[in-house]
Each structure stands twice: as structure tokens, then as C-alpha cells.
């Protein structure tokens, strides 16, 4: 493992190219045999157990499963917030599971957008300050970061709330600010962990519409959720149990005929 970590970059690139040519198309995210274990011997817990996953560019994937099935742990592994015990992880063709801490931190900041259940906004900063923070940390000028943040708030429909503190915003508005922040550095992929877990049904709808518009704009999205409404917006739904992926569904569109009968409009 150590030896591989110290390989020059050129080697890693060529290895990735081989993997990509295996399937003939490139994945935005690719996991192979991804594993996360806690404890040891009798107390060993496999939170994520040999997961293989490919997420295509522009695809929205929802991961559902009972509490404790390992879906949040999987998301943390995919986003480099946590290190796998075994397996490989590639982002846009680059192997990331063996990256050094500094490189990984940079990758998280520049290439991955995170959205959390509890929003995780900075309470003492205004909406626009929260959104511009990642761009500032990435070394952009104050002016460029502010311009980008203003544009993103516009995109999530909160241009008129730019100077509000999070405490003055509703739950749905806070989550939309958090989503704008996740987009600050034009990430390759947005990872969302129960994004509507703290929201009422109206606010859920706001977030839903926003995810739909991101999807239409070609953003790659992975959403871990309990909420069937959010899951139903995905192109592909993955069910997880006991750390493993057990079922995969493509949610292709049906007909309004179905809907009419659901409304009691049988001819």
C-alpha cells in the first residue's frame, strides 16, 4: 500500500486510463470493492461491505435503506470525508482513496459539494458570506467570490436574502443557501446526506425543485435519503442493506394513464 501511495502521478493516470477503457465510458465516480470496517474480531462491523458503484456524469443517484444500513458512511467515503478500509475510489478518472491528507482536503474543497441534513451554515455569517466562503478558501479574489456567490443565490431563488443571517431564514431557505454554497467551486459532484431530513413538506418541495434544476443543468448528484419524494427525482435508485448494495432501479417515466387511475379517473 505504502509503495503504491508513493508512485509518481504518471503511473496513477495510466492505471486509471486502463480502468476506463475496460468499460468504454468514463464514470464521474467509480467505487470498486469499497469497504469500511469498525472494531475488530468479534466486534467487527462492516459499515460498508464491498460496494461497487458507478455514477455517470450528469446522473442523479439516490441511495435509500433502513437506518444504520451504512448509506451515510458510503457517502462520506465517496466524498473523501472518511477513508475506506479497502477498495478503490476514482473521481473523474483520478484515484482518490490513497491521496495524501492535503491533496484530499483540496479535492474536497474544489471538486465536491456537500449538503447536510442540518445545513451546517456559519451562524455569524450572512447568506452571501456563507456561499462565498469556499471560493475564498480556494484562493479566489474577494470580488470574484462575491460575484459568484451572488449569482448562486440568484440561482437558488434567494437573491433578496443575501444579507440575511441563517437565523432569519426558514429551514428550506437555509438548505437552499447550503446548496448554493456546495456549488461555489463548480464541483464535479454534489453529495447530499438526507437533505430534506429537517424540512417540512413545503420546504422539501423547494429543495426538490432545486435538485431538479441542478439535474437539468447536468450536475452529477448522489443523494442519500429516507424521503421517497427526493428518491423519486433520481435517474437511478440504489437500495442498501447491512452495508451492501442489494437492489438497483432505473426510474424511467411511465404514463399519465397510471396517474389518472390513481386519482380515481378510471374511464
Amino acid at each position, binding site marked *: 500500500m505504502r509503495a503504491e501511495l508513493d508512485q509518481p502521478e504518471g503511473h496513477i493516470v495510466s492505471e486509471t486510463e486502463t480502468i476506463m477503457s475496460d468499460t468504454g465510458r468514463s464514470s464521474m465516480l467509480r467505487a470498486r470493492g469499497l469497504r469500511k470496517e469498525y472494531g475488530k474480531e468479534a466486534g467487527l462491523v462492516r459499515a460498508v461491505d464491498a460496494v461497487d458503484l458507478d455514477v455517470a456524469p450528469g446522473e442523479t443517484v439516490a441511495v435509500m435503506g433502513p437506518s444504520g444500513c451504512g448509506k451515510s458512511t458510503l457517502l462520506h467515503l465517496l466524498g473523501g470525508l472518511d477513508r475506506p478500509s479497502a477498495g478503490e475510489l476514482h473521481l473523474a478518472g483520478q484515484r482518490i482513496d490513497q491521496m495524501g491528507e492535503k491533496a484530499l482536503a483540496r479535492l474536497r474543497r474544489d471538486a465536491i459539494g456537500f449538503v447536510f441534513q442540518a445545513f451546517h451554515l456559519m451562524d455569524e455569517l450572512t447568506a452571501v458570506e456563507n456561499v462565498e466562503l469556499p471560493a475564498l478558501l480556494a484562493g479566489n479574489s474577494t470580488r470574484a467570490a462575491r460575484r459568484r456567490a451572488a449569482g448562486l443565490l440568484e440561482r437558488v431563488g434567494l437573491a433578496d436574502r443575501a444579507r440575511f443571517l441563517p437565523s432569519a431564514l426558514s429551514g428550506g431557505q437555509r438548505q437552499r443557501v447550503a446548496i448554493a454554497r456546495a456549488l461555489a467551486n463548480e464541483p464535479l459532484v454534489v453529495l447530499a446526506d438526507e437533505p430534506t431530513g429537517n424540512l417540512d413538506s413545503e420546504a422539501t418541495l423547494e429543495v426538490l*425543485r432545486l435538485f*431538479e434544476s441542478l439535474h437539468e443543468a447536468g450536475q452529477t448528484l448522489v443523494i442519500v435519503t429516507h424521503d*421517497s*419524494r427526493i428518491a*423519486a*427525482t433520481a435517474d437511478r435508485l440504489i437500495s442498501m442493506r447491512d452495508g451492501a448494495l442489494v437492489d438497483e*432501479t432505473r426510474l424511467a*417515466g411511465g404514463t*399519465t394513464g397510471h396517474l389518472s387511475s390513481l386519482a380515481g*379517473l378510471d374511464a
Partner: protein
Amino acid sequence: MQQEVVLALLAKEPSHGYQLRARLQQALGPLGDAMNAGQIYVTLARLEKSGLVTAEHSAGLPDRPDRKMYALTAAGQQRVAGWLTEVSWPRPDLAEFHLKLVAAAAARLADPIAIVDAQRRELLRRLRDAQRAAMAEPDRSDAGLLLEGIVLRLQADLTWLEACERNWTSRKGTS
């Protein structure tokens, strides 16, 4: 088409057939697309026969069902009033699915969890359709409210499927 629905559409004022159709389209939005255009006229003809509506041929207009002027009779008005106060609600058929799971498990014919998964896939596809249709509606549209009802019912069914899954998973573990 249920007779009372057509009667109630007429309660506002005497109307031409095409106006009734427009009201129905407005209320149902995309859900009305699947409806047969002739259905409402079949219903109107029946209502006329049973004396609940009158149909008058308007002067200067072609003698076609969509150009006739329809109006409620006193009996028709009474029927509408009775229908509005009637409490009815469609019964969801949960027992059949439940018994499918019970039978599959008892006879070891199929894995109940697999049946739940298949059902969930189907409901999620419908939820996706309903949700997309709902989001395409302008705010506070009549059709949007109906679609919201479909979305909420599907969510309730999906929540029940989660309970089914938990229950059958734990049974499998103990048996």
C-alpha cells in the same frame, strides 16, 4: 364519468357542452388528457333521460352535443346538493398485498422482501411521474392540488412498504 361530477359542473350556470369540457380540463390538468372526449356527452345524454338536466338546442348553432345548452332541473339540483354533503372515500386495497406477503412467506413461494422491493419500484416510478407533473403546474393550480394528493397517497403507501420490509426482515432473522 360519474354522473354527479357532470351535474356539479353544471351547478354554476347553464352551460354549453364545450364549456363543461373546458371546466373539467382546467380542474384536472394533465390528468384530464387521458379522458375520452365523448364521455361527458354520453353522461349528459343519460342525465337528460333521467330528468336531471335539460338540453336545449341554441338557435344559430349546429345541432351537436357540444353546442347544446345544458341546465340542471330541480331534481338535478337536489342530487348535487345531496352529493356535496355525502362522505365517501376510496378504499385502498392494502389487504390483497398484505395477504400476498403472508402467503408467499408461509408457502416459501417467494421472498416477501423481494415482493416489497418490486412494489416499491413500481410506486416510486409513479411517484416520479406524479411529482414531475405537479412541478410542471403553476402555483396554486387546481390540477396541481389534485396531483399533490396523488403524491401524498403514494408517499403513505411507500411508508407502509418500509414498515412491511422492517417487519418481514426481522421475522426472517428470528425464524
